[in-house]
């Protein structure tokens, strides 16, 4: 139990936190713009990981082409998802949107179980056993790549949201849908893009984590619960809040895993969520929610 042990835990926590953040930011973006809680979000994370697995092992693609391919497929799936299912939903039909995306999640998840069984698959590649060794620290290359991808996606999303016109439009719709419509922003185009980006981030997260963890059809299901807790902790619809909460939770979990029993680690997200709801219902970074 020396310093390098803590640093190792901390680094692991940052990696997993950044991946949480990718999923949670997409979820938060979709909630912010469309006021829809996407229950199928985790399934796209699962599909991303599955697709990465098959592309690498069956099609023999390298690491970077796989990542690019999976992200492109996920973004297209996001477009299709919006145009096929979500387009008819409005903010006031909150329960309807949950049930609709829940139905989609059931189809995708159980369909994947039916086709591929629940046996976890390990994605073994040349990357799996490469480490960077710095002093006492061992950093698996697959985790480092996941971290780099996550940070790059962070940066890209930030650039889109804050330095492009379409990003401004997205933030506008999230702030006030009617007012955005009045100044000539097409909510449909903006919503479509938000869903595509959100699903794309989720697929990317799956592809980035596929070499780190085992791939199986139920992986998205448990992952998305943490993402839900994260967006509540960060404040519903608050994207940077979700990112900070995600990295915080990743680090906290990783440190807790070094000392506490497993049940406490998995329960950590939920307990923090309840605590936040009791003490600060608008979330850590939320503003102006009437209680």
């Amino acid at each position, binding site marked *: 139990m020396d310093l390098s042990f803590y640093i190792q835990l901390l680094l692991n926590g940052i990696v997993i936190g950044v991946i949480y953040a990718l999923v949670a930011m997409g979820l938060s973006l979709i909630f912010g713009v469309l006021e829809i809680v996407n229950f199928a979000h985790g399934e796209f994370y699962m599909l991303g990981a599955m697709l990465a697995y098959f592309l690498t092992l069956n099609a023999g693609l390298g690491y970077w082409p796989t990542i690019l391919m999976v992200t492109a497929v996920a973004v297209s799936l996001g477009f299709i998802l919006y145009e096929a299912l979500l387009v008819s939903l409005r903010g006031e039909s909150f329960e309807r949107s949950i049930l609709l995306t829940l139905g989609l999640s059931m189809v995708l998840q159980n369909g994947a179980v039916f086709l591929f069984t629940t046996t976890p698959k390990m994605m073994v590649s040349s990357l799996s056993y490469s480490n960077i060794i710095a002093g006492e620290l061992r950093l698996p290359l697959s985790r480092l790549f996941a971290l780099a991808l996550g940070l790059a996606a962070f940066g890209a999303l930030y650039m889109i949201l804050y330095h492009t016109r379409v990003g401004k439009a997205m933030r506008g719709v999230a702030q006030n849908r009617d007012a955005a419509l009045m100044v000539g922003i097409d909510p449909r185009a903006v919503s479509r893009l938000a869903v595509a980006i959100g699903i794309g981030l989720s697929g990317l997260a799956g592809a980035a984590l596929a070499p780190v963890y085992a791939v199986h059809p139920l992986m998205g299901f448990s992952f998305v619960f943490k993402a839900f807790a994260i967006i509540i902790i960060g404040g519903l619809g608050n994207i940077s809040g979700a990112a900070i909460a995600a990295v915080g939770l990743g680090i906290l979990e990783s440190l807790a895993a070094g000392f506490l029993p497993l049940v406490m680690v998995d329960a950590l997200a939920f307990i923090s969520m309840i605590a936040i*709801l009791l003490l600060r219902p608008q979330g850590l970074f939320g503003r102006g929610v009437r209680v």
Partner: protein
Amino acid sequence: MTSGWLRALSVLLSVATLFAIPKLTGNEYVLALGVSFATFSVLSGGLNLVYGYTGLLSFAQVGFFGIGGYTAALLVMEQNWSLWAGVAAGGALAALVGLVIGYSSLRLSRHAFAIVSLSFALLCMIVARDWVSLTRGAMGIPGLPIPTMSLPAGMHWRFVQPSDFYYLLLSFAVVAHATIYLVVSSRLGRAMRAIKLNEALAQSQGINPLSYKLLAIALSALLAGIVGGLFVFYLTIVDPSIFDFYYTETMLIMVIIGGPGSFWGVLLSSAVLTVLPDLLRFTTDLRMVLYGAVLIVAMLLFPGGLGAWLQRRRVARWRRPRLVPR
């Protein structure tokens, strides 16, 4: 007046028929389906109270169900309580937990409640699986004893045969549904519906939404906890799979198909959806794919469910012009 009597009569007849089934057939498969129907109808009835009447989408029902099951099993096995005391304690604990979740999340919004209820259900599963010293982990608690009921005059009724549990769960289901019916057809139920339709308007009429929401959550949790306790003694084992998301999805489908806010619709769809998939012999994966597809189609085309369809038909009948004035 006549239609009310007719309805009461048909309900009495159906209940009597259900109770007569073990006398007519000793077929254990039929009885198992009956137990399954009684259990699921209570769960979906409770969900209907929370979602259909009060407008709160809850995923926590399965958590209450399992808490009832685990509490009853642990109290009976470790503390030597009687089944009845254990089941009552399970129901009470479930209701208490329901109040805590409801109070903490409803302060924010019903959106937050939906998400929190979902995480809660998952947390229950994690605790049941990983808190080995309390729940004995993934292996669960097998070998639950056969319960006995003391009857007057020193008699005992041991629940040995499948038909005994059939009677037990069916009786409880009748009590549970009668309770739900009393609530939804009373002032309480009208207040709940008012909150669902327009919370601000209901508030302006002097209705405090939070207390009615909490009442709906607590009552449905109580019923789910009790039925969970009875159900695990029917299975003779409780393990973490009692928190399986499968139960939630099945309950939701029953409520959606039956029509949220329609008492008889949900009851009917619970019966049909218990019996039909079993007769068709789908594997669970395929069944869930199908349920998911049904959920998507229902949400896109048919958001009110069976109940709304019946309601529309009734309205159409009222509107039909009558040639002979009354």
